[in-house]
């Protein structure tokens, strides 16, 4: 039942193949990163024929485990020039898993200017000329739904992906067929665009849950895992009620909310763009708005509410904290409705909200867009879809924008923009930004937990003590969670409730007949990171790239007036199991 689907965009061949021995037992990020590391020449041009784009559901995909239907996307990144794993919710992960397709590997390129869509069903896969080329995600999906129906799920790129902009994302439809779950980071949408692949249609008909070696054991373990998630205050209630936006006020209070391009750690209008306000407005406006909405089947955390406009009509999904931050405090904008519009535009045009939102604030720092001018941002955003020069610049993300506008403070590591935590006031996450093979990424090792949220212990956010170890352990654990197919937000429960990890291990053992222990999960995480770092080394990205831009070490940030004071040598001890 289990197979890979290998798609060649040049010859149009779509072949189901047996899973090679060396990939047995891998899923999600472990699988995408291993395939990319083995099959992609690290020095290839990311937007050329030698790069490959890999999609893989996780090890617990197509089971009754809660929150396990995520999808991992891997390739060489045109943004960082290193390996990329970008992770998304939505329905396609679960659908692919149900069809027994453990990975789609997209190779080579179609003739420039041609657009194709990939139709996948239980026993067939074929490339046909795309019927939605030139459309952004929402129109494209609406048209595809007319053509293929409501039971399929859809993977698309918007015009940003067609233009191969380096902040382009890949959209995955949610349960309501809205293309608003994204593999956002690293320009994976540009890679899909470079291949001439506009859309993937997945018809789950005839698919089924994976066989379990020990059904009763699985059921019991899955129940324990669900109990851990529902009993933890964050995964059981907090995320559903306030979304990730709950972080705006707490990061402001902690002095770690980067404001006006990282020149201050607090934003005077934080309350206006907070999760509390989003929750209140969503309830007051009612209509199509929703608190506690899940982005994929099997999600019991339900962080992705729906934000209604003043008339109660759908406006956007609840923006993530990062999106609220970069179009908000970072760009000196305090209009929640406007930020939600930008969020929706990012989803529609198909760009990473972080790299583009941070680019907007960086353009403001360089005089390319007037500071805090929402109208000007709107025009620039439309320009991404229209292909105007400014649109293409911000659509290529923060590093490009900073270069074009001659900006001193360009908050990027390995070409990818920093998310919403000032590394001088939340030092643990700074270690992650500097060292993760992905380029600056908070999700790679979310030290905000112990630094700010008192989750999984406490580590003083302003001090160096314990931060490297914290980031190391979180990076390892995250790589494993991303491989199992679990939404990363399950980690809040995993960090605080010991039985949650035990339950995951028990589910894996019951599904596959393995005899894993908790230690094996650590080993798996280390192995994935080693593979990714090795790819980067072969691509020419050395340890010397593991640092933050020097304004973070030069300039203290208010209110704590601290700098990021780790030396490169200290940062290089993060992956201490890798021999130099």
């Amino acid at each position, binding site marked *: 039942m289990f197979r890979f689907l290998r798609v060649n965009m040049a010859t149009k061949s779509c072949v189901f193949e047996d899973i090679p021995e060396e990939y047995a037992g891998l899923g999600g990020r472990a699988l995408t990163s291993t395939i990319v590391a083995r099959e992609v020449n690290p020095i290839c041009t990311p937007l050329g024929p030698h790069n490959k784009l890999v999609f893989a559901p996780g090890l617990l995909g197509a089971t009754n485990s809660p929150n396990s239907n995520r999808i991992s996307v891997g390739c060489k990144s045109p943004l960082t020039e290193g390996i990329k794993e970008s992770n998304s919710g939505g329905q396609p992960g679960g659908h692919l898993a149900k069809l027994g397709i453990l990975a789609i590997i997209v190779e080579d390129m179609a003739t420039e200017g041609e657009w194709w869509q990939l139709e996948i069903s239980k026993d067939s896969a074929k490339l046909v000329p795309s019927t939605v080329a030139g459309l952004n995600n929402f129109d494209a999906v609406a048209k595809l739904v007319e053509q293929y129906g409501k039971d399929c799920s859809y993977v698309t790129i918007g015009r940003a992906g067609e233009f191969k902009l380096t902040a382009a994302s890949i959209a995955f439809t949610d349960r309501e067929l809205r293309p608003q779950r994204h593999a956002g980071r690293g320009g994976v949408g540009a890679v899909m665009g470079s291949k001439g692949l506009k859309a993937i249609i997945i018809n789950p008909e005839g698919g089924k849950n994976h066989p379990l070696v020990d059904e009763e054991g699985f059921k019991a373990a899955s129940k324990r895992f669900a109990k851990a998630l529902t009993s933890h205050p964050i995964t059981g209630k*907090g*995320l559903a*009620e306030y979304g*990730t936006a709950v972080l705006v006020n707490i990061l402001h*209070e902690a002095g770690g909310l980067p404001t006006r391009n990282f020149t201050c750690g607090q934003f005077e209008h934080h309350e206006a763009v907070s999760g509390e306000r989003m929750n209140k407005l969503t309830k007051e406006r009612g209509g199509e708005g929703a608190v506690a909405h899940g982005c994929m089947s099997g999600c019991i955390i339900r*962080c992705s509410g729906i934000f209604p406009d003043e008339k109660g009509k759908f406006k956007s999904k609840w923006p993530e904290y990062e999106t609220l931050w970069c179009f908000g405090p970072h760009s000196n904008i305090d209009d929640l409705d406007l930020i939600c519009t930008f969020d929706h535009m990012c989803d529609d045009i198909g760009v990473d909200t972080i790299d583009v939102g941070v680019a907007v604030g960086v353009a403001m720092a360089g005089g390319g867009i007037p500071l805090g001018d929402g109208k000007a941002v709107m025009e620039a955003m439309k320009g991404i879809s229209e292909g105007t020069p400014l649109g293409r610049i911000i659509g290529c993300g923060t590093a490009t924008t900073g270069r074009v506008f001659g900006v001193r403070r360009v908050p990027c590591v390995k070409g990818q923009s920093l998310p919403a935590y000032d590394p001088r006031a939340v030092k643990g996450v700074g270690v992650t930004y500097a060292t993760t093979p992905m380029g600056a990424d908070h999700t790679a090792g979310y030290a905000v937990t112990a630094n700010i*949220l008192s989750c999984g212990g406490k580590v003083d956010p302003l001090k160096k003590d314990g931060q490297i170890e914290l980031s190391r352990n979180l990076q390892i654990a995250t790589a494993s969670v991303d491989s199992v197919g679990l939404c990363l937000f399950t980690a809040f429960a995993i960090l605080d409730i010991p039985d949650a990890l035990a339950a995951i291990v028990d589910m894996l053992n019951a599904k596959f007949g393995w005899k894993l222990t908790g230690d094996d999960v650590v080993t798996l995480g280390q192995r994935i990171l080693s593979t990714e770092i090795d790819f980067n080394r072969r691509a020419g990205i050395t340890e010397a790239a593991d640092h933050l831009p020097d304004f973070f070490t030069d300039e203290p940030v208010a209110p704590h007036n601290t700098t990021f004071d780790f030396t490169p040598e200290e940062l290089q001890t993060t992956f201490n199991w890798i021999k130099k």
Partner: protein
Amino acid sequence: MSILIKLSTTLRDMVPGYEPETGLSVSLKDGESSITAGELASRIGIPLEEIKIVMINSRQSELASVVADGDRVAYFPAVGGG
């Protein structure tokens, strides 16, 4: 002088009339020279078990930490995102 209290999410509902923008100002009682963050929370009617995170003047603190006149104290229940 007084102490400025800021509340987050569900804790706001426990203090009638709480204004998110301005927060809540509380004065120490006559003759009182200091108070702990926990005592202060109890005084405004927030059960201690609801509080997961305390910040005094933007620094991570504990319920047992001492609050002085003029300080800013923020309380949070368990919250998380990413």
